[in-house]
C-alpha cells in the first residue's frame, strides 16, 4: 500500500516521521521508503518490533537517566546487568559511526568502464573504514534479526593497502610497479627545479610536465583497475548501505518510542482492533502548549462498521485520526501511541475526511468524499481493509445524506473490513455493528466567561468515548457550543427561537 502525502498529513503520520531522527543518509532514505507490513507478513513485522524493542532497551540502558526498563514484551536472550551495559555501549558505538557516512550510492551508479576519480575513491575508502568500525561495534551487541552485513573486508584491503585505516586516500606506489620509479625521478627533478634560478627553470619544468603526464596516465590505469574491482562488489556495497539504513531506522524508531512512551502493538488473530489509552501526539502537543490535556481514548472495533456520535468539538475526528495513526504506525513497524494496542494487519488503511481542502480536482467536498470512497471500494475488492470516515455525506441535504450514510454502514457491514465513521445523523447507529458516543458537555461550570472559548468548552467536555446502545439519538449540543463560542447575541436569539 502506498502512503500518500495526504494520508500521512491527515493521519498525523507525517508529524511523527518529522520527529524521527535518522543519523545517516541511508536512514533518511529508509524513512522515505517505509515498508508496509500487510496480512501474511506477521512474522516479519514481529521481527521488526523485536528489533525496535531491543534497541529501546539498549538505548535506554545507555542513557544517562534511564527510564524504568520499558516493557517491550520481547524475548532477546536474557542479559545480565553487566552484559546489558556492554551491549548498550556497543549500540552507542554503532550510532556514533552512523552520522559519519556520506551518501556514495551515486558513485556506484555508473558504467564500470568509467573510472572513479580520486575524491570518489577517497569516499569509498572513508565509507569502508567507517563501516568497519560500525561492524566491530555491532558485533559486540546482541544481533538485530535480519540485520546482517555482507562482508566488504576485501574491498577495504584493496583500498587501505598499508592497513593503517587512515581517513585519507592516495594512489599508492604499490598499485602499479612503474609508479615508484617514476615518482622518484619526478621528485629528483622537482628538487633540481627548486635549486635552479627561476629564469633557467624552463627546460626542467617541461621535463617535469612530461613526467607528470606519465604519472597521470599510470594513475588512470590504476583508477580504472580499482574501479573494475570495486564495481564487482557493487551489489554488496548497495545491500550494505540498505542494511545500514534499516539499522538506522530501527534505532530512530526506538528513540521515538522512548521519547513518547509508545507501546509495542500486539497483532490480533481475529479481525478486531483493541486500543486502550490511545493518543494522538500531534493534537496532544498542541493541547499541552495551550496548557490543556489530551484525554486518552479506549476503542474496540470489530469487523463491520462502528459509528461514533457526539457533540461538536467533542474529539470525534481526533479519535478517527488516532485510530488510523496507530494502524499506520503498527503496519510500518513502529510502536504506537497508546497504553496497549491489539491490531490486525490490513491490506489497506484509508482515512476519508469530509473537507480535503484545495486540490480536490474540481470536486465539491461531497463529490470528493464519494469519489474517494468509490475508489477505495473498487480497489479493495479482494482485500481486508480499514476505512475511517469523518461525517460521511454531511455535505448534502440531511434526508438523503442520512440515508446514504445508513446505506454505507450497511454495505460496509457486509464487506471484509473494519470501518469507523463519525456522524451527526440520527438512525445511522441503528444499523452499525457498534456505537460509541462522546461523553460530551457534562460538566456544569460557572464564572469563567472571560476565558478563551476553546478552554471553556474543554473544561466542560468529557472527551471519553463511551459505548452507547444502537439507535441512541445524537446529542443536541450545537446551541450550547455556539453559546460557548460566543456567537453573536441577536443571531443566537433567532437560532434559539427557531429550534
Amino acid at each position, binding site marked *: 500500500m502506498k502512503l500518500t502525502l495526504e494520508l500521512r498529513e491527515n493521519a498525523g503520520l507525517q508529524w511523527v516521521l518529522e520527529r524521527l531522527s535518522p543519523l545517516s543518509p541511508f536512514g533518511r532514505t529508509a524513512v522515505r521508503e517505509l515498508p508496509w507490513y500487510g496480512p501474511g507478513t506477521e512474522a516479519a513485522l514481529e521481527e521488526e518490533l523485536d528489533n525496535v524493542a531491543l534497541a529501546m532497551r539498549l538505548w535506554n540502558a545507555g542513557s544517562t537517566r534511564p527510564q524504568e526498563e520499558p516493557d517491550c514484551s520481547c524475548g532477546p536472550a536474557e542479559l545480565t546487568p553487566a552484559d546489558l551495559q556492554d551491549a548498550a555501549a556497543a549500540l552507542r558505538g554503532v550510532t556514533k559511526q552512523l552520522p559519519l557516512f556520506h551518501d556514495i550510492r551515486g558513485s556506484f551508479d555508473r558504467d564500470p568502464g568509467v573510472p572513479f576519480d580520486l575524491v570518489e*575513491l577517497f569516499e569509498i575508502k572513508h565509507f569502508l573504514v567507517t563501516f568497519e568500525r560500525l561492524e566491530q561495534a555491532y558485533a559486540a551487541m546482541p544481533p538485530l534479526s535480519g540485520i546482517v552485513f555482507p562482508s566488504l573486508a576485501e574491498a577495504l584491503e584493496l583500498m587501505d593497502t598499508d592497513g593503517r585505516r587512515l581517513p585519507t586516500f592516495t594512489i599508492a606506489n604499490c598499485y602499479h610497479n612503474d609508479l615508484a620509479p617514476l615518482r622518484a625521478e619526478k621528485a629528483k627533478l622537482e628538487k633540481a627545479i627548486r635549486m635552479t634560478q627561476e629564469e633557467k627553470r624552463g627546460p626542467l619544468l617541461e621535463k617535469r610536465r612530461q613526467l607528470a603526464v606519465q604519472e597521470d596516465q599510470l594513475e588512470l590505469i590504476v583508477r580504472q583497475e580499482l574501479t573494475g574491482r570495486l564495481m564487482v562488489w557493487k551489489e554488496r556495497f548497495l545491500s550494505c548501505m540498505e542494511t545500514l539504513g534499516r539499522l538506522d531506522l530501527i534505532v530512530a524508531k526506538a528513540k521515538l518510542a522512548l521519547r513518547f512512551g509508545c507501546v509495542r502493538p500486539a497483532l490480533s488473530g481475529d479481525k478486531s482492533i483493541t486500543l486502550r489509552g490511545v493518543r494522538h501526539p500531534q493534537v496532544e502537543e498542541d493541547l499541552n502548549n495551550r496548557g490543556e490535556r489530551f484525554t486518552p481514548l479506549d476503542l474496540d472495533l470489530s469487523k463491520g462498521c462502528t459509528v461514533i456520535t457526539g457533540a461538536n468539538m467533542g474529539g470525534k475526528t481526533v479519535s478517527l485520526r488516532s485510530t488510523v495513526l496507530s494502524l499506520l504506525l503498527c503496519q510500518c513497524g513502529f510502536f504506537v501511541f497508546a497504553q496497549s494496542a491489539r491490531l490486525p494487519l490490513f491490506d489497506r488503511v484509508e482515512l476519508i475526511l469530509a473537507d480535503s481542502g484545495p486540490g480536490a480536482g474540481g470536486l465539491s467536498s461531497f463529490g470528493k468524499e464519494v469519489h474517494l470512497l468509490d475508489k477505495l471500494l473498487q480497489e479493495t475488492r479482494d482485500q481486508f481493509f480499514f476505512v475511517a470516515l469523518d461525517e460521511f455525506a454531511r455535505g448534502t441535504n440531511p434526508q438523503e445524506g442520512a440515508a446514504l450514510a445508513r446505506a454505507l454502514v450497511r454495505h460496509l457491514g457486509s464487506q471484509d473490513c473494519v470501518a469507523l465513521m463519525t456522524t451527526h445523523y440520527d438512525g445511522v447507529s441503528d444499523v452499525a455493528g457498534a456505537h460509541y458516543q462522546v461523553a460530551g458537555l457534562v460538566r456544569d461550570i460557572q464564572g469563567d466567561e472571560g476565558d478563551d472559548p476553546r478552554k471553556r468548552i474543554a473544561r466542560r467536555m468529557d472527551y471519553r468515548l463511551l459505548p452507547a446502545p444502537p439507535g441512541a439519538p445524537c446529542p443536541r449540543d450545537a446551541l450550547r457550543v455556539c453559546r460557548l463560542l460566543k456567537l453573536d447575541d441577536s443571531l443566537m436569539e433567532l437560532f434559539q427561537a427557531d429550534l
Partner: protein
Amino acid sequence: MEHLLAPLVGDASPVTVIGLCKNAGKTTAMRRLMAELGGERLALTSVGRDGESTDLVTGTEKPDLYVKAGDLFATARGMLSLCDPTLEVVGLTDVMTPLGPVAVLRALSDGYVQLAGPSAAGQLPPLTRTFLELGAQRVLIDGAAGRKSLAGAGVEGVALLCTGASLDRDMELVVAETAHTCWLFGRKPPEEPRLRQALDGLEARFALFTPEGEPLELPLDETGSPRWSKLPRQPLAVWAAGGVMDPLLKTLARRGAPTTLIAADATHVLAGRAALDLFLRNGGELRVRRKLTIAAVAANPWSAYGWHFEAEKFVQALRQALDLPVVNVKEA
C-alpha cells in the same frame, strides 16, 4: 630571493590576497608570497572565482600556483584534473560549488594546482580550522577581485591588497580608489566602551544609540524600514548590519546633526567616494564593529588592456597617498 612581502605579513594567518580589480596582480603577489614563505607548510584556497573560471574554460590564462610537497590546498572536485602533483585526498567539505564539492588535499610532490574554493565568506573559517588541524603553518587565501566582492577578506588574519593599472587608464584615479579602500580598512571600532558592548552580537538590521551607547528607539514605518527623517536632532550612533550604500549616507548627511555610522566591517561599505565625502563633510563619522587589517599594498603598473603606468611614478604616488607599505611585486 629578496623577502619583500613575507616581512610585511609577519606571523599573520590567514593571509588573504585581494584585488581592487581583475588583473591587479593577485596571482603574482600570491606566487611571490608562496616563494618567500617556502620554508613553511602552507595551506591554500581561494574565494570568489567568478571571473576567472571563464579564463579557465577558454584557456587564455592559467593562473595556477606551484605548490611544494607537503603543502595543503582546498579546491573543487572538478578542478582536480587540472592539478598535477601526486595528490592525497584528506577530506571533503560540505561546501558545494558549480565544480563539485570542495575537497581538501595534500600535495605529496611539487606541482601546479588550480584553486576553486568556497564562494561564501562564512565558509572560510571552518576550512581554515581544518587546515590548521592538518598541520598547516599558514593559510593563504586567493581572495576576490573587485571592490564589491571583498566581503570576508581579512576577517581573520590580514589582507594583502593588489592594485594596478587594470583598474583605470587614469593613474590618479587608481591611486585615489586604492587610498579610499585603504582608508575604509583603516576604520576603527567606536571608542566608547559601552557602545562597543552594545554592538557586540547585535543582529538587528539597523539600531540607534546615543554616542555614549544608550539604546534609542528607531522610528519605523509600516513596512518596518527606518524613518530616517524622524530621527531626533542630536548626535547619534547608527548601526547598519548590511551593505552601506549611497542613499543611506546621503540621508544621514542631510539630517542636521552629527552621526556616527557603524558598519559590520570595511567590506560592507559599498557606497561611492562622493556619497561618503558628503557624509563626512557634514560631520559624519564612519566606524566599524570589526577592524580589518591590510598588511601591505602590492602595485602592478601593467594593465591587461594595453596601457601601463611608469612603475616608479605609480609606486611613489601610492606611497604618498597611503600610510601603508607599498611594493611593486614585479620589481625584484
